[in-house]
């Protein structure tokens, strides 16, 4: 049997090298030309605690991390017990023979450490596993051998023991009768590919946008962005720095944005909440800045290492008073890169704060994507004032050029309601004018692009953020099975692209798969009069494609019976 797709889950205890093994497999497979996606979930501790990483390898672009497991690599008994239920019927459990299992399932015991030592080095344990995996899907042994030879080029000893370990693992698996068919040869994607995590893609996207000021505070799962900036955002005119709190982060980037910098911080739910008042100031005083919220489970400390899409409403309305912040949410690793440029462009264009909503599931996963096109989204820079001193910074009903300290045009950027000078005022007419001015500027951001397919259907699905992948995979399956459902998607959540809004208003039903209890995005769509409904999930895990297919089908059927709202 030929297979296009193969899902492996490595499960064990934190510190057992689960992530390393999975990342190595992903890199090896991607190097050969397969499409890969990893999915990691782990406890909030460094050593110990149950952890797993899943790798999906495919001949086609991968949209989700895979519903069922073909091979479970269990590194301890607990991992076996926790995950065995998710192994497909014809799947295999590969386990380390240092422990015993009650082998009701198809199980292949591998003396991992023994074989690794036989290969000449205990550290080659992962290669033993990869060798055995290669046998299970009948993968030519050269694939991993060539990868090892390339990766450890010039270190003959390392190449030698790793190659031996691969072979010992392969031979050991061959002693069993298990095989999962043959994984088809890869169809190498055209053009240069990179294997990258969402947080890294987003960070480099920000650099491409021209970020030159970053202040952050450690918080999962946003810390890698902070670390990236500390390491790379250095040199004359640039600044990356560790704050003492998220309150300090937000107010510092506001000061920098005011001083003419492209300023950014990245955080997660708890930190984002602390930024509320500051974000109101940036909106009020019209100061460009970008705040990344890499969503995790909430509220409070919540689920720091799990995925959720439950910060949307908070991102929209983080501050008290009348404000509604622009929100962009990438849905793929590729979009993590481009959305960072869009976020800065929006901040510069409308002169205010922009929220970039990422998610744990994208932040921490690796995926192959085409090398980003650096000409696709040209970076924008705010319109700056170039006249003399005595400028009316906040004059009129629309955006006005922004003076930068160190040049004429001095004014007071004021968080209190203000007049054209930036002086505090309590006049009713001024509050009306300024409120309308601030909201009016959002018009400048309504030209975002969006995806639409099957637009003839009165029913559509419209996932957002990281639910795009599983949503798309489910939609494709439903279309293939003959259902008539439209597809809409955009990363520009607020303001929505004006044309998209028009199209959605025509629909009888817009189904929004999203990872939160409240149905936050559909309730937002309903405020515009769109007949939107959510399919929610709040497990801390992404959607399974099969679950989405079932739930969408059910809702569509109900619609056919005349059910308006479930």
């Amino acid at each position, binding site marked *: 049997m030929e297979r296009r797709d193969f899902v492996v889950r490595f499960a064990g205890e934190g510190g057992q090298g689960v992530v390393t093994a999975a990342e190595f497999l992903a890199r090896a497979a991607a190097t050969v030309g397969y499409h890969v996606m990893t999915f990691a979930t782990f406890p909030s501790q460094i050593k110990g605690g149950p952890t797993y990483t899943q790798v999906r390898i495919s001949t086609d672009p991968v949209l989700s991390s895979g519903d069922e497991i073909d091979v479970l690599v269990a590194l301890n008994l607990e991992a076996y017990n926790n995950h065995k239920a998710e192994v497909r019927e014809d799947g295999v459990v590969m386990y380390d023979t240092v422990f015993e299992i009650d082998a009701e399932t198809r199980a292949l015991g591998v003396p991992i450490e023994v074989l690794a030592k036989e290969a000449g080095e205990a550290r080659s344990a992962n290669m033993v596993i990869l060798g055995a995996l290669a046998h299970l899907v009948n993968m030519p042994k050269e694939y991993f051998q060539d990868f090892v030879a390339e990766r450890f080029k010039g270190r003959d000893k390392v190449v030698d023991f790793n190659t031996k370990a691969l072979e010992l693992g392969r031979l050991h698996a061959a002693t069993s009768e298990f095989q999962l068919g043959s994984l088809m040869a890869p169809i190498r994607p055209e053009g240069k590919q990179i294997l990258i995590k969402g947080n890294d893609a987003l960070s480099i996207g920000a650099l491409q946008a021209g970020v030159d000021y970053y202040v952050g505070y450690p918080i999962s799962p946003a810390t890698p962005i902070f670390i990236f900036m500390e390491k790379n955002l250095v040199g004359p005119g640039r600044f990356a720095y560790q704050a003492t709190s998220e309150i300090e982060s937000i107010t510092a980037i506001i*000061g920098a944005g005011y001083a003419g910098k492209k300023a950014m911080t990245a955080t997660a739910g708890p930190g984002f909440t602390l930024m509320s008042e500051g974000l109101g100031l940036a909106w009020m005083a019209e100061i460009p800045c970008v705040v990344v919220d890499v969503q995790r489970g909430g509220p409070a400390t919540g689920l720091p290492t799990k995925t959720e899409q439950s910060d949307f409403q908070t991102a929209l309305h983080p501050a008290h008073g009348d404000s509604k912040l622009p929100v962009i949410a990438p849905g793929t690793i590729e979009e993590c890169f481009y959305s960072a440029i869009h976020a800065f462009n929006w901040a510069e264009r409308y002169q205010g704060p922009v929220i970039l909503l990422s998610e744990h599931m994208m932040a921490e996963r690796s995926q192959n994507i085409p090398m980003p096109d650096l000409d696709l989204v040209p970076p924008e820079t705010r319109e700056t004032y170039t006249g003399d*001193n*005595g400028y009316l910074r906040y004059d009129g009903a629309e955006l006005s050029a922004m003076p930068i300290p160190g040049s004429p045009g001095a004014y007071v950027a004021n968080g209190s309601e203000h007049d054209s000078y930036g002086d505090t005022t309590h006049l009713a007419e001024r509050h009306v004018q300024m409120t309308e001015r601030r909201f009016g500027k959002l018009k400048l951001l309504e030209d975002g692009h969006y995806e639409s397919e099957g637009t003839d259907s009165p029913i559509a699905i419209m996932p957002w953020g990281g639910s795009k992948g599983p949503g798309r995979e489910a939609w494709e399956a439903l279309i293939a099975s003959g259902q008539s459902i439209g597809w809409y998607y955009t990363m520009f959540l607020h303001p929505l692209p004006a044309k998209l809004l028009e199209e959605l208003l025509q629909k009888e039903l817009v189904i929004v798969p999203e990872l939160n209890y409240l149905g936050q995005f559909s309730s937002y769509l309903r405020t515009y009069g769109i007949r939107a409904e959510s399919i929610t999930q709040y497990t801390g895990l992404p959607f399974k494609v099969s679950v989405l297919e079932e739930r969408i089908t059910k809702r569509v059927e109900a619609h056919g019976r005349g059910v308006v709202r479930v």
Partner: protein
Amino acid sequence: MSAKNPEYDFKWCPGCGDFGVRRALEWAVEERGERTGEPIYNNVIVAGIGCSGNLVHLYEGEQQPYGIHGIHGRTLPIALGVKMGRPDLNVIVVAGDGDFLSIGQEHIAPQAARNLDITCVIMDNGVYGLTKGQSSPTGEQNMVTNSTPYGKLEVGLNPLQFFLSVGVSFVASAFSGKPRDMAKLMGQAMDHPGFSIINVQSPCTTYNDTFEMLKGSKNKGIEPALYDIPEDHDPTDWNAALEIARADGVPVGILYQEQYSQPLHQRIIDTIHPQFQAKTVPEMLEAFVL
């Protein structure tokens, strides 16, 4: 803009100490401009929330420096943003003791550790004026206010001692009634390459009038609390500065100035830049190529 702006409706109470502070700051900034040749728009005033922060609006026309009138308690991190974004700018924080020492206190020690090159002018009146007279950190123990109707329970904060103990590299004390002297101190603070704080006794004539206590009264036989720091005081001697801060009375002058003060932006140039090799975006992406 402001004083002549008909829409601007904020006024300090007659006799407020903050008038003197504003005058002193105008003189100091003007004097610094003449001395350095820097235009007025190279100055950024980061103002706190409270009566004192309104100082930032009280400039006129051509003399208007840049300003941020932000949110309560966050002058210091906003100043961190401005200064580290543009180290060439002269950044001045103006705030009251409520804003700076209560809600904003958490930001003082980090700025001292960083030695952020800014000048802070604290208008200390021992009370929250704009919210009509509540107890503030520097108010004395047992003081009766509307938020402490049975007397304040906490010991009053000694701001000078606090600033010294967390490592502020320039600490001075001033009185709003002597703007000329204060302007001179402000000039010295702005020239100091590091984190400078001038704590100004700026009495609130409405809710906590301390003028008499500060200046004394011959008629009533009250000795003035204010005194000039003796000329033989060595401001580089931290222990001597601490003794002044802890002693009775309100000193006027420079308590402490670190001799070899290296500000944050200079530390970055000296220690980080030599270690760093810049990479372009294509080079960064290349590192992820399969």
